[in-house]
């Protein structure tokens, strides 16, 4: 009665609309959840150097070094619409040059089913802590905080700020020796 083409078309349209409805249900069921949780951060060793930044301007810039401890449990953030968490540790501070500086020092991807209980001791930063100028030496108030970007199966991509931050100071003298 109806051609194969018509039947195929009707079937495809139906399958697609069912998939769209399910995806939307998945999205709407998780859109109002609260993804904040507590994080415990502290620094162990802090020093600052003044060396040329060959990756950028080649001028002498302040380069901070630090190791940190981090404890948090993100297991309960996962649900059927969270594919991955992208964790990142940000250092935020103000200098004479810039009203706002944000530098990611460390990041980590946690997929679903992976261990989301973090207990890191004496971790090194993953990325260089270059300042835009010479504003790190003797800086009194640098804030470290952990945030995560939620990657869903389908839906929004929120950036969530962890509860709990850590403020620290840089030493007033540059370290000249190699570490």
């Amino acid at each position: 009665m109806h051609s194969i083409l018509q039947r195929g078309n009707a079937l495809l349209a139906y399958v697609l609309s069912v998939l769209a409805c399910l995806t939307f249900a998945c999205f709407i069921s998780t859109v109002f959840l609260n993804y904040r949780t507590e994080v415990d951060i502290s620094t162990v060793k802090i020093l600052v150097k003044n060396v040329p930044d060959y990756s950028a301007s080649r001028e002498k810039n302040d380069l901070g070094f630090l190791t940190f401890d981090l404890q948090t449990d993100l297991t309960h953030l996962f649900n059927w619409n969270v594919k991955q968490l992208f964790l990142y540790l940000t250092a935020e501070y103000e200098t004479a040059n810039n009203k706002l500086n944000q530098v990611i020092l460390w990041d980590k991807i946690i997929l679903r089913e992976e261990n989301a209980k973090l207990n890191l001791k004496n971790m090194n930063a993953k990325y260089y802590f270059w300042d835009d100028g010479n504003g790190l030496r003797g800086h009194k108030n640098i804030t470290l905080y952990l945030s995560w970007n939620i990657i869903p199966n389908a839906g929004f991509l929120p950036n969530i700020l962890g509860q709990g931050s850590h403020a620290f100071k840089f030493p007033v003298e540059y370290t000249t020796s190699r570490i």
Partner: protein
Amino acid sequence: MEVSSLFDDVKRMNMRQFYYQVLSFGMIVSSALMIWKGLMVVTGSESPIVVVLSGSMEPAFHRGDLLFLTNYPEEPVRVGEIVVFKVLGRDIPIVHRVLKLHEKSNGTIKFLTKGDNNSVDDRGLYAPGQLWLTKSDVVGRARGFLPYVGMVTIMMNEYPNFKIAVLVCLACYVLVHRE
């Protein structure tokens, strides 16, 4: 079915019906166009929906995933956000995460990006001599995510003949068949 019989519907139409047929085809095209332009206005981004073309953000985004962007001027760019930016000399916009950001007191920002799946930051991808991105490079910020849907456009771009065939068939179908 004979080829000539395809056009029987057209032959039986009078001028008004034929003009209406052309208009209804025009309205299908216009609806898609107007939805796109409407999204541009609502999101403030010149391209509110982009398809992920590379694996540099895996495992978060794979080739063929769809991203919804916004680009409101009053919303500041922050570290950890996923931005879509254009680089001089490259046709295809890049989707990467903001790694470092410096904001002057007059509001001008410069920032550095990195793909989650890349081991180094994006300075090698920028235009020669370019060290930082600024707000004018940004096409939009990723706000929503939908998997797989963009595969259709990737296939169409990879097989241009397939794209033309689909478009011609659609146009013929709409023009020839009276609803």
